[in-house]
């Protein structure tokens, strides 16, 4: 099997100056942006670079990150999950309703939303894998349905302790302290939601990069037909991804409910766009050029720091979306730039 001539020689990379600088930026641009922003805010505001503020930032991004992990998983199988935002809302409502309306224990108040999230994910998977609806359309449809469902359950009202009930009395149950710990507690002065976030970021990162499960998720997304022909049960892996996406949205919903101590309606609506942005920014981090959970984490840190800093500088919240959008465009530019290079 010897070949006497070289038919194709791969280009040897000997990059100089400018040529070397560009890949550096596409690879580390996002991290660099974070450093620059941190430096800038530290100079502009004295309170920015303090332990308390950092824990604030991390706590603020923990919920977005959890949702974004789910989005990342759906992106990995070359899909998309638009229903995560309303799943968060539904999880928030079901967990608080379980306690306030039906006097359930914390364990039940956690299990019910998890189950609900799993079901949402499986329905998504059913529509996409079995019925073969395009992912965007299926999850968009489900987004509306779940949104309507959670408003129907609550008749449009938020759920809180001692809320008036339709029968004239007040709700008999209350949101339990052990439940509130999930979103408000601290261990060694680290906020518990931050611990949850780190836990899942690490677990999912290891899972995606070092296990067969992760490899086959990426392979499924990389080229479904080639994967199928290599014996990968692609439908099953797509189902896993959407189920996990629903699960992570419901975990985020539980943390959110516990954090604010009430079941707010439509509380997850704004999380969809933030988590999608975080996951997409994540593509460009360290030049991964693919959905990855560490990148997603960096993405939500970037968004979190920006929002925190801008709030400190008294930039009105409605103007902050402009910055979010700009960051997203910037990150995507980096990604497509480096994709062209490769």
């Amino acid at each position, binding site marked *: 099997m010897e070949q006497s001539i070289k038919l194709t020689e791969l*280009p040897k990379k000997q990059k100089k100056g400018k040529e070397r600088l560009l890949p550096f930026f596409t690879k580390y641009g996002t991290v660099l942006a974070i450093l620059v922003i941190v430096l800038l805010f530290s100079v502009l505001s004295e309170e920015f670079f303090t332990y308390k503020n950092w824990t604030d930032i991390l706590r603020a991004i923990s919920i977005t990150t959890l949702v974004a992990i789910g989005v990342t998983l759906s992106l990995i199988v070359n899909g998309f999950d638009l229903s995560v935002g309303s799943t968060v809302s539904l999880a928030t409502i079901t967990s608080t309703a379980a306690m306030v309306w039906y006097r359930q224990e914390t364990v039940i108040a956690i299990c019910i939303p998890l189950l609900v999230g799993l079901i949402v994910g499986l329905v998504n998977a059913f529509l996409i894998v079995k019925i073969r609806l395009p992912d965007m359309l299926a999850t968009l449809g489900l987004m509306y349905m779940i949104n309507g469902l959670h408003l129907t359950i609550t008749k449009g009202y938020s759920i809180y302790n001692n809320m008036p009930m339709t029968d004239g009395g007040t709700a008999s149950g209350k949101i339990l302290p052990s439940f509130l710990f999930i979103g408000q507690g601290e261990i060694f002065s680290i906020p518990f939601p931050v611990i949850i976030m780190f836990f899942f970021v690490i677990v999912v990162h290891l899972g995606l990069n070092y*296990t067969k499960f992760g490899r086959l998720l*990426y392979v499924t997304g990389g080229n479904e037909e080639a994967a199928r022909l*290599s014996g*990968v049960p692609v439908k099953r892996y797509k189902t896993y991804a959407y189920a996990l996406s629903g699960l992570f949205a419901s975990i985020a919903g539980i943390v959110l409910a516990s954090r604010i101590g009430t079941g707010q309606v439509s509380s997850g609506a704004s999380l969809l766009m933030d988590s999608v942005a975080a996951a997409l920014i994540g593509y460009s981090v360290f030049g991964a050029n693919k959905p990855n959970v560490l990148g997603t984490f960096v993405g939500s840190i970037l968004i979190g720091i920006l929002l925190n800093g801008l709030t400190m500088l008294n930039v009105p919240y409605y103007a902050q979306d402009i910055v979010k959008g700009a960051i997203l465009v910037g990150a995507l530019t980096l990604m497509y730039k480096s994709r062209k290079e490769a």
Partner: protein
Amino acid sequence: MSLQMKRIVKSFHTNKVLKEVDFTVESGEIHALLGVNGAGKSTLVKILSGQQLYDSGEIWIGEERVSLSSPHEAIEAGIGIVVQEVDTALFPELTVAENVTMHELVKGPVFVNWKTRKQRAKQLLQQVGLEIPVDRLVSDCSLSEKQQIVIAQALARNVRYLILDEPTAPLSETETTTLFRIVRRLKASGVGIIFISHRLPEIREICDQVTVLREGKTVLQSEVAGQSDEQIVEAMLGRTLTQRKVKTEKTFLNPILQLDHFTIPKLQQKITFTLYEGEVLGIAGLVGAGKTEIARALSGQDPSPDMLTIRGKKDKIRHPKKAIKLGLCLIPEERRKEGILVDFPVDQNLSLPRVQTITTAGRIDRKKEKQLADAIVKKLGIKTPSLSLSAKRLSGGNQQKVSIGKWLDTNADIYLFDEPTKGIDIGAKGDVFSIISSLADQKKGILYFSSELDELLTVADRIFVLFDGKIIAERRTQETSLEELMALAAGGGTQNGAVNQANRTS
């Protein structure tokens, strides 16, 4: 008048693809452009059609120097191209008339006069000799019709030089004959034609001049008639092709795969045959004869409702995973779409079908994965600077080796090769053939689907000829000839076919 390219240089990063290439095509001649993959043909073509800029050199049309810095300029200069994948040049949801007259639509007045547009389209199609209703949607046209529509499009732009990039590869014999008639007509009207093909007999049939590129240089420029096949191949390769070994007749005893009235769903046909251990069974057929459909049914992509027998055991293949479990693996024709994962590194591509064997407690052992990949890379001579290189950056031949290599040393013992030499250069072809014969030595059963009949004669022990979804003939390789196979594949009986063959070459 002539189109002249002088000392054209083009590099990508530090890789010089064209090193002072000279190329001249005269009006009214058919000029073959040859070279193995990576020789610089496609780059040269892209420069001519304005899709890529050259670094230095000059391009002249007659007495006028042209820059060809954009596709628009190339069209203005009268250079047209029929790309290999014609679908990319057409609008499938528009009618034939609209497609053919697209250029005039862009240039023309604000309001479209449908009547004149259709008439113009008819007129252009007549020039090509194509008779299809101009109201038909392009998506309903056959591939060869689409090709002709693209040619008509070029005529609408007053093409003076037309590039045909491997136009005959997907065509049947009759379609090829039609195409050649059109090309000759264009030649007679003074168009200069650049004809790219890998098939030497064709070039001999239709081309006047030949230019061979090798490693970015012009190595041969001559009249076709003045060169023998051997000389041309030698110019392409820079070495003489080793003489083909005539396969020695072998006897095979143990059946490995038996099909008995096995339904091929996409063909609505039932086929019957037996494949033996250590045998390379060639399935010859032109494009559209049903090769891929059979391969897809056997590999579980389009599952058949019928049972088949593997090593004496009856079983049903419902999906690809089942096929793999039974030891059947497919090396698909659409390599980049189905065979490999282009965005994944070489080692992960190679380990994919046996990822379970390198996994302990869910965790992939990367070290084992690298060792495994490294062994296959060495065994098959896959040229890659690193195991973690994206498969998309390998050459076509090396990608094919990856597509094959991922099945080596798995439990696979029936290999289905669907057009394994498509789009790979002669050197890599030789490697693929030796891989196949070593698989046969290891008592594997091999089904080799191909439209390259001469290659089948080299590699197969026994050949089935497929026509219109049916197996119409069975031949031992020693007992048949290229002429006979060609005639059979083209649908003629032996005698008729031979006559057709004679007509075609005369």
